[in-house]
């Protein structure tokens, strides 16, 4: 029988909290950029202007057909070179966090674009006609009439996607970036207590994500009521 020894966790909590902050930072940036860029992609795809629509469709299909781990690896390899060249950073500068944020943001945009596209299409066509009939331009009709309703309809989906995204941030372990999962792994490895630390990390992810999902469900009930 395996002898559990949880004693290395209390002392490691500050380090684990630092990791959690990185996980949350990546999630936050990726959600915000993902929704903004995803909205633009969705509008392009629905614009009826062929080059824009093809570009957006290509972008979405590309990112949805590639494993996230690979996208992250690419960004860990490409972004440092890019930032050295453009910003004149030293080759030793640590750009892993920025790389991770960019990778997640661009990858998640593809998923958000599809959610938002469905959200926009869920708003009845008559609403757009009514906005036009009042003299609104396309931009005004979208901004004032369609998108507010679309976001309201799809808020639960957007939040659920954010929860999935938060779980996926653990994939940054490929760059040895110490997010929450990475930090737990490091502590466990150091103390020879990998099993305990991974069980603990799993429990934390479960509590946070299950709690958040529950909150989303309640919100959904309120929105649809």
């Amino acid at each position, binding site marked *: 029988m395996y002898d559990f020894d949880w004693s290395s966790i209390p002392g490691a909590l500050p380090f684990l909290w630092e990791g959690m902050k990185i996980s949350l930072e990546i999630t936050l940036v990726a959600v915000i950029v993902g929704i903004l860029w995803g909205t633009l992609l969705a509008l392009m795809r629905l614009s009826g202007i062929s080059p824009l629509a093809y570009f957006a469709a290509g972008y979405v299909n590309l990112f949805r057909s590639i494993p996230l781990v690979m996208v992250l690896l690419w960004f860990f390899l490409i972004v440092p070179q890019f930032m050295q060249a453009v910003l004149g950073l030293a080759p030793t500068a640590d750009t892993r966090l920025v790389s991770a944020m960019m990778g997640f943001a661009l990858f998640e945009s593809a998923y958000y674009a599809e959610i938002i596209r469905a959200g926009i299409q869920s708003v009845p066509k*008559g609403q757009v006609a*009514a906005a*036009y009939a*009042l003299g609104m331009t396309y931009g005004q009709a979208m901004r004032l009439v369609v998108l507010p309703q679309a976001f309201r309809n799809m808020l639960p989906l957007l939040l659920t996607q954010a929860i999935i995204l938060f779980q996926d941030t653990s994939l940054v372990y490929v760059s040895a970036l110490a997010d929450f999962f990475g930090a737990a792994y490091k502590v466990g490895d150091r103390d020879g207590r990998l099993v305990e630390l991974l069980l603990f990390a799993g429990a934390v992810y479960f509590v946070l994500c299950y709690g958040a999902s529950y909150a989303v469900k309640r919100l959904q009930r309120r929105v649809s009521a």
Partner: protein
Amino acid sequence: MISIRRVSKFYGDFQVLADCSTEVKKGEVVVICGPSGSGKSTLIKCVNGLEPFQSGEIVVDDVSVGGPKTDLPKLRSRVGMVFQHFELFPHMTIAENLIIAQTRVLGRRPNEAMDKGLKLLERVGLTAHAEKYPGELSGGQQQRVAIARALSMNPICMLFDERTSALDPEMINEVLEVMVKLAQEGMTMMVVTHEMEFARKVARRVVFMDEGRIVEDARTEEFFGAPRSERAQQFLSKILHH
């Protein structure tokens, strides 16, 4: 004010409007009726450019609707439209529904727009509902708000795509009352409706459509007294003895 000349429209091979011509003078009320699928709604949606058409010309207040240089948003801001399903904005209160286009499209100041909105709300008898959301109102109330919203833009004419059959009789009356008053005040109106009482009361002319064509375009008394076409006679006997 509104002149429709030989307008035809196709969805692919299917012709929805065939060579339609009619005229609405300033202050005139014209009712458009006909069986469903006859193209009535499509015709009035062509008037403010919501539906494109392939041939012919529509001129509203000396502006050609399909013209290449026409500023459609500007033209539309001067033409009021009330939709079949009202299309109030459900995420805004009634007051916001009445204000949004005034401030964003016409550039009126918020308090000026609010004054105007509340005045119109009073006129359609819904002052108490300013802070409610459209979903909290009955169909007839929503339609009156939709009329107020269109009037908030000080339109030069009004288009009604009205299928009052969606409303119960009591509500039809409250809506028609507002529309009759509007007509008596001299508003130029094109009204798609099955309410023949309304047509009799306020319409100068009745346009009868069938299968995308204007079959009959007659003065109201003539239309009800002795419709020339057989289709119009059938339609009238059906709808009046209903």
